[in-house]
């Protein structure tokens, strides 16, 4: 299992559209992906779960990935955060 923490750096946080970008990437991997924010967590392949996390701009989210392609999934998701969900 790999885990890492990232800050939500796009202008308005993990809203529906940004969650959609996350899901599009997460769905390409067979590993299980979980996203934690505060006391909540969501399946990283669920757009509604992610949108319910209330991760506003600047929030830190922890991501746990477990499965055969966990390293590749981590790399791809980190890149998404670094690109600020392609918004800026």
């Amino acid at each position, binding site marked *: 299992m790999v885990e890492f923490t990232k800050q939500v750096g796009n202008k308005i946080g993990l809203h*529906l*559209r940004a969650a959609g970008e996350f899901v599009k990437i997460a769905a390409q991997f067979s590993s299980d992906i979980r996203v934690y924010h505060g006391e909540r967590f969501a399946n990283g392949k*669920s757009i*509604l*779960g992610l949108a319910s996390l*209330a991760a*506003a701009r600047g929030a830190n989210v922890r991501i746990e990935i477990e499965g055969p392609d966990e390293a590749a999934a981590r790399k791809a998701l980190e890149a998404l955060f670094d690109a600020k969900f392609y*918004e800026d």
Partner: protein
Amino acid sequence: MARNKLDKTNRAHAAEPVARAAAPASKLETKAEIERRGVSASPGIVIGPAFVRDDDRVHVPRKLIDASQVGAEVERFQKALADTARELRAIKSDIAKRMGEDHARIFDAHLLILEDRMLVDETTAAIQNERQNAAAAFERVINNVIASIAGIEDEYLKERTIDVQDVKKRVLRMLIGKDTRTVNRPSEPSVLVAHDLGPSDTAQLDRRMVLAYVTDLGGRMSHTSIIARSQGLPAVVGLENLVNRVETGDTIIVDGNAGSVIINPTPETIQQYENEMQRFAELEEQLLTLTGYPAQTLDGRSFTLSANVDAADEVESVLDHGGQGVGLFRTEYFFISQDYLPSEEDQYKVYRQVVEGMGGRPVVIRTLDIGGDKIAGYLHRSPELNPFMGWRGIRFCLTRKDIFKTQLRAIYRASAHGSVKIMFPMISQIEEIEQAKQICAEVREDLAKERYKIGDHVPLGIMVETPSAVAMADQFAREVEFFSIGTNDLIQYTMAVDRGNSKIAHLYQHLQPSILRLLRLTVEAARKRKIPVSVCGEMAGDRLSVPILVGLGIDEFSVSPNVIPEVKRIIRSVTYDECRALLRRVSRFRTTQEIETEIEALLKSHAANNGRAGA
């Protein structure tokens, strides 16, 4: 229309004989006339039957299904998801074609919701384990999701529940077996009344059946407003709780000019509006004959008539109404309508569209006047106790230089495509204009280094809208190349009156003697330095104020596109000399009442001239 109302009453009686016996008189009385004020989103007046979009009242049947039916019910659910996805993809490509890829992008998120594992798995589990019917199971699961998103404190994140609601309604209709396109469609030309209209709603409407739009939510840049303007239909938005006050079939008047609606108008009110519509139609006709004529007084003094706009789609209307330029392009609405801070490229595209659309006519672009009543969610500003006196306009831009510079870069780049002027809002002290000019110089230098083309000369000007700017007008006139008087804020700050507060709204008047003095000071200061003065507040379009502004000798009137013909008509019916004399007379008056009476008398004496205004 009256027949409709009667029919409905009759039906109600037939169904409820007891109620009829109990309260015969009140049931037969006509409904009371109600007037509601909102935001004018698209001009024009319409009287017609209301069609209330009944989308929140989908009745979801609940039943326990037989164990043998479970497999079939799960399949039915999956088929509903697949059918909804097909419908959404069709809408998406239609929107992309008609309005551009940007508008279509939100449907990607809608499609992902349909595939959401949590949603699909939990609904399937509820069907299998609890033997709920698919519609009831799905509704419960998605309502939980909506409730948890709605509980989020962040205003922006919360706002997006409308997308989930949109998907919920579609799937439910698919499951219940009603065709979305007929359920939501009026069968006679009607005024569409809705809580809010999303992109997918308007895409499916039969335009021949819609006379006007009115919605509870929304502002001038909301989807409904943009659609209404592009279709040339009247619209009033931001009416709060209108949906619950109107029933389908009620007669409704939509006054897109004043931003108000009247439900169940009395025959007298209808008559009054029919006259108003007649006048509006005549004005529109006059406009066609007037477009070719200059805004010139009988004794030959010319004025520039420009338009105030919020969006690129209004340019066509400006030209149709004979606008000679854009006197005020309010850029903040573009910022507010976005989900995130628009990039330099985003802004450049919009500014360029307006500048090119005006084909070389001058366009005054006002830099971001965010704050006050218009706060964009993504800026995450904390609420202010007194926002109109707070961190807004140039004050905001000078602290958020990153945002300011990005906007200036976009404006300067657009200036290569036509005639652009830049105007700064909410200026109250000299240092602000000094700093703003400095930043403009830096931006120009950067762009030159990066080899961008910019306009040869881009004049810088200020909004004169604080009393302190008036008091220092002679000094500001040395710093800038034009003034534009924003009368709305100037009156608010001078009279210390919040025009939205009905208890004191009477203080908010264009023709306050104090306001006339401030206008005069401003015009005199500008004249000494030979810089032009425009008036871009609502006063410039106010019938009684026009002769005064003519007499003051301002250079330009900037008003809503649809008001241009009216202003032109008044200018063409008076002489500059008599307006100057009028101004001298009213300058001695101490009350608004006296001033208005004097102007009324002048306009009345010219009433006979109106007929030949276009000749």
